[in-house]
């Protein structure tokens, strides 16, 4: 089975690279061809950007493309779409939507954003208040979302809204795809601690969505949203970079440039190097466990470990810089960037951006609840909002 899949994937990669040499093909055309060759999301079926093989082959595809001088940066440019939206559409949307939306998503002709969090509902996503009320074949949406990454560039948004306030919170949600250019959608920048505005607040004022654009059944929005979140956590935590790259590379560079002779700092530096490597190896091990049909708990630990470690290492790097650590080279730029800075170019920006790692995609506290309850089998918290209609639950 694995042998067949290898052959199939290899043949397709070769066909793609031959017909569309990455060096001489414009990025978007290449990504389009990659989609048509079934190498966008290899686990998807034929015609939907995949070739029906195990998802683990994607790493091989991406490696070969990069090796041949091609780019896989669409995965960052359209992270909410390619990383999370695609899996959600494949699992829950109708075929027409899938055919219409997946290809331009992959080529980045259409950028996606995720409209989940609200001022009153973050970790407790299911408590959200944005409403969708049905009028004939149309839904009328009102409310406010926050922290919406890349909403300023987005064509489409993944939206969870409350369609029934009289049932307990999880039961009254419905999932939609919303046209971000529709009347009544207002996107305003929210500037982050880096000065940049990767994210936004988004207001909905009588925005109309066709019932066609509903994903999953009415009242099933929570299950659909969970698909998105699970894809998100894997997307965040399962990236296998080369040894010594990422945050630890900044630390090593700072160590070398700044004399590097303090034995205490050296010990700490090596400690972080080891931990970064431990996290990297665990990600590889988790990936292999998935492919061989015996998924272990290690996969779910990736997001938590990476987030907290990335924060520690980037902060330590600033310490290593000494006085230079008090600077912010180039100053703060109040821009609305066209990709997220998680792979930040400078140690200073990486330091600030890393603060979000343990908040975005589910906070580290929530990750620990999930690991404790779902992986270790510990009992949950007593829930004061259980079986209580959403309308009656206290909110801040």
């Amino acid at each position: 089975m694995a042998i067949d899949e290898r052959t199939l994937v290899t043949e397709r990669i070769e066909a793609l690279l031959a017909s569309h040499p990455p060096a001489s093909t414009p990025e978007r055309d290449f990504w389009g061809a990659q989609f048509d060759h079934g190498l966008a999301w290899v686990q998807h079926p034929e015609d939907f950007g995949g070739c029906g093989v195990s998802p683990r082959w994607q790493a091989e595809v991406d490696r070969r493309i990069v090796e041949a001088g091609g780019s896989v940066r669409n995965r960052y440019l359209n992270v909410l779409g390619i990383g999370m939206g695609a899996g959600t559409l494949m699992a829950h949307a109708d075929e027409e939507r899938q055919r219409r939306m997946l290809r331009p998503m992959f080529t980045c002709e259409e950028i996606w954003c995720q409209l989940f969090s609200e001022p009153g509902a973050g970790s407790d996503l299911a408590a959200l208040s944005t409403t969708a009320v049905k009028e004939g074949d149309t839904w009328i949406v009102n409310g406010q979302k926050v922290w919406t990454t890349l909403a300023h560039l987005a064509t489409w948004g993944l939206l969870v809204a409350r369609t029934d306030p009289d049932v307990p919170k999880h039961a009254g949600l419905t999932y939609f795809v919303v046209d971000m250019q529709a009347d009544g959608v207002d996107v305003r920048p929210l500037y982050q601690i880096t000065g940049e505005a990767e994210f936004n607040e988004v207001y909905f004022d009588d925005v109309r969505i066709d019932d066609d654009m509903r994903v999953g059944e009415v009242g099933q929005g929570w299950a659909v949203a969970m698909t998105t979140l699970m894809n998100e956590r894997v997307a965040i935590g399962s990236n296998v970079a080369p040894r010594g790259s990422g945050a630890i590379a900044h630390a090593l560079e700072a160590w070398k440039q700044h004399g590097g002779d303090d034995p205490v700092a050296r010990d700490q530096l090596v400690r972080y190097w080891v931990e970064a490597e431990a996290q990297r190896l665990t990600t590889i091990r988790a990936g292999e466990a998935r492919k061989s049909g015996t998924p272990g708990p290690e996969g779910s630990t990736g997001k938590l470990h990476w987030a907290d470690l990335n924060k520690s290492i980037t902060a330590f790097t600033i310490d290593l810089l000494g006085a230079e650590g008090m600077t912010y080279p180039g100053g703060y730029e109040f821009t609305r960037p066209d990709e997220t800075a998680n792979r930040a170019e400078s140690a200073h920006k990486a330091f600030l951006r890393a603060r979000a790692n343990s908040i975005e995609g589910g906070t580290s506290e929530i990750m620990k609840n999930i690991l404790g309850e779902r992986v270790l089998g510990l009992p949950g918290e007593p829930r004061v909002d259980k079986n209580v209609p959403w309308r009656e639950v206290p909110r801040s």
Partner: protein
Amino acid sequence: MTTATPTASFTVTEEQRLLRATVRELIAARATSERVREVMLGDEGYDRDAWAELAQTGLTGLTVPERFGGAGATFAELAIVIEEAGRRLLPVPLLSSAVLGTEAVLAAGTEQQCAALLPAVAEGRTTLALAHLDERGGLTSEPGVAARRDGEDWVLQGTAGYVVDGASAEMVVTAAVSDEGLVLLVVPGESAGLERRPLDVLDLTRPMATLVYDGVRVDDDAWLAGDDAMVALHRALSAGVVAVACEQVGGAGHVLEMTTGYARDRIQFGRAIGSFQAVKHRLAELLVQVESARSVAEHAARVLAAGDRHELAIAAPMAKSYCSEVFEQASADGIQLHGGIGFTWEHDAHLYFKRAKATKLLLGSPSHHRALLAEVLSL
């Protein structure tokens, strides 16, 4: 700085899966808490019945080549046995005999010497120990024992400290300085002039001894005359370091399971204590650490099995430094999260706590291994 990224693979073969299941079952039956305590407080030194059963199953000579009577498996398989033994603190001389002693003989002995010594070791009839530290446990280029030639014989004088299973081993591979530089000599434990003083150890499940050599005489055949002794000793110690890391993963994993189970069952304030986040989050953090420790230890075992000396210089100190600290943390949390019962002699939590501390300091502390790593990484 760029270090090449090694290819890491964690593929588990069907044989390895089976081996783990078999060993786990065997050890669960053998290493009950009562039995481990009986052995640790007795003076046999190790669990001879368990060792005999391991031998029958072919597990005492796993990495010994078939031509020397062993199973001819790799360190990846031995690592599984060691991890499983570590889970239940099975008191047997795996580390001293199957790893340190065997690796030293394999690396330094001639073909004939290996053929003479190893079959009995593989069959579990003879156990080996490695004496390479000075009396105070220091690893210097000058061990505490000196050897000089006297006609056809060698005569040993001096003291070796912290010899794991040193009092029970049939044969002690002794590192000694001589006119010819470092030599490794295989000294029978019952030799005249060899006094073996058991140390009062923190971790009672792993005895250690001080060996005092006062004119101990062995014939020339005791001198492992194959490869360079320094290189051989280094190889044996690298294997030991990786073995300890694997054992620590076993111990830490067991503590996590034991403590999670307790957190599910123990009720306070009308709720299982595991429903309190202070407890739940600590256990989730431990899960992350234990899984990471498992990755580095397994990686090191596989690198060792593949004979990749270059990567081993990174993987071994990485594993030893990381797993030591994870086990220490896990075993300390294990006591804390059990409350008062965790502080009793009766509960097993302290056995793991002691094993963790002792293995952290055995074969080089975490900071020592990080210093080694810093050198390899040119930091």
